[in-house]
């Protein structure tokens, strides 16, 4: 396992190198010029020239990239074209919000997803199953912006129970919790839906197996039969989905962040892409990639934990 971690770490470095190169190149290949954004529609040609010169964009791409890498080695991830803020600072201010949001919504998703998934597996083809299926499908079919807006309308505007947006109070305060509820539900619903469907289908496979029969023969109660004996065996695809979603959530909470005016990484990245703010795009993508590797590592460790037959040597 230590070997696994070390190996992952080395792979991570390669991955980050690769992805930074790819992002760098694609930002340069993709149409759009940071200078025109900064200069605005009426900037003159010489204005743009000056801006480019100022940002160092007049040099060959490879030189820029090498320069960028050199900076990273010294812990310098560059400065935003737009605001001049250091990329590290920009990320540090936003990351906690994204983590809060992603974690909260993942918790919502896991609890709702697994519970409904299992219930509908046990009561396969009952009305409970049908309604949880419907819920799940609504969950993936409803776009986040729609769901978010509806939640705001009902709970913030009409009932005034929860704030419309923002994420500024500390998480341990009641205010902080309240702020998280609506965004977490908005973001978590689609994941909950997928987790629910996955758990259901995995459970259906498992509950027919011989070892479940053995557990029954031992007189194990229905509840622990499901939640202990079957669940663990059914978890592999479920954990995968959780991993995918969690990584995804940390990387891309864009729409939820937009709707709920949350100052997070997703918005930072998307704004930066729209503004061709290369250093910020680079920084956020690298962060997201690192998170993916990390989450994937955890998922792999959990695999081995769930299913002892899986080993990594």
């Amino acid at each position, binding site marked *: 396992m230590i070997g696994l971690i070390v190996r992952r770490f080395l792979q991570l470095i390669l991955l980050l190198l690769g992805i930074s190169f790819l992002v760098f190149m694609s930002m340069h290949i993709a149409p759009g010029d940071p200078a025109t954004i900064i200069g605005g529609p009426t900037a003159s040609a010489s204005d743009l020239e000056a801006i480019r010169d100022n940002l160092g964009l007049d040099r060959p791409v490879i030189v820029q990239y090498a320069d960028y890498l050199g900076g990273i080695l010294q812990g310098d991830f560059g400065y935003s074209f737009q605001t001049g803020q250091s990329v590290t600072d920009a990320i540090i201010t936003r990351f906690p919000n994204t983590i809060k949001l992603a974690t909260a919504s993942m918790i919502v998703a896991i609890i709702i997803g697994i519970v409904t998934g299992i219930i509908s597996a046990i009561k396969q083809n009952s009305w409970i199953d049908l309604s949880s299926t419907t819920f799940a499908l609504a969950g993936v079919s409803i776009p986040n912006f729609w769901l978010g807006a509806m939640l705001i309308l009902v709970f913030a505007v009409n009932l005034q129970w929860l704030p419309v947006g923002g994420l500024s109070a500390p998480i341990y305060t009641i205010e902080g919790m309240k702020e998280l509820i609506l965004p977490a539900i908005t973001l978590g619903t689609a994941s909950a839906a997928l987790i629910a469907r996955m758990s259901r289908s995995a459970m259906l496979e498992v509950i027919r197996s011989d070892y479940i029969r053995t557990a029954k*023969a031992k*007189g*194990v109660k229905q509840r622990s039969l499901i939640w202990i004996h079957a669940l663990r065996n059914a978890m592999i695809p479920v954990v995968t989905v959780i991993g995918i979603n969690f990584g995804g959530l940390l990387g891309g909470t864009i729409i939820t962040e937009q709707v709920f005016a949350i100052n997070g990484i997703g918005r930072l990245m998307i704004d930066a892409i729209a503004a061709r703010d290369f250093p910020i795009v680079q920084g956020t993508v690298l962060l997201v990639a690192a998170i993916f590797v990390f989450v994937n590592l955890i998922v792999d460790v959990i695999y081995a934990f769930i299913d002892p037959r899986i080993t990594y040597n």
Partner: protein
Amino acid sequence: MERLLQVENLVTQYKTAEGMFSAVKGISFTVEKGETVCIVGESGSGKSATALSIMGLLPANGKITEGSIRLKDDELVGKTEEQLQQIRGNEISMIFQEPMTALNPVFTIGFQIREPLMIHLNMSKKEATLVSIELLKKVGIPNPKEKIKQFPHELSGGMRQRVMIAIALACEPSLLIADEPTTALDVTIQSQILDLIDDLKEQMGMGVVFVTHDMGVVAEIADRVMVMYAGEVVEMGDVHRIFNHPQHSYTKGLLAAVPNVDDDSKNWLQGVNIHGKSSASS
């Protein structure tokens, strides 16, 4: 003797692609307290189906369509899952035929043995662990302290089978259903297990339904023998009578096919005709 189990006119059917198929066709038998009934019979004749019917653990496509199964005058057919949970593992235990798939691959051996103890005897985890180690020792598993931390796939076939046995015996049930419990065991361990079962039978008055193909084992432990063929009981009786005066041609054929360890005679091989149906039918 007290009547422990009474099976009457049991019919068990499986739904298959070709339609309903009766694996057990109206069999009846009883098991007394402290008695061992061995079921022998042709492979596929419905022995496991009978055992599973008693446990109420037929697969999804299987169903008891007729008959009654009474444990101490308590009708089992038609009981709900919840009611059965109280009985299974406690009153009746079963050792399944295929130990590889019968153990949960993701839990340690210890967990799986502890469970019935904690459920039915309300033991704490600690107590249950101690008892499990004892049990494993009793079924002849070396180094049980370490084995309880291992997973099924790390054990040999015979060890898994013994784990199954340990699980089934954990709560000292009044009725033990053992479906070919010793196929993967060497004879020394087999005899140890048989002794163990015998002890429990003597001490607790446990009734045993023992499915096996090993006529040596039958001779050793059975009080009565039931011979099944194609879903029906073709012959049933005291072990001595069955061995010494078999009535049905199938039983005779069966006995003739037992290889003899003590001499070189290959007669046992001759009784059957490889191609086509079993010799018993002719």
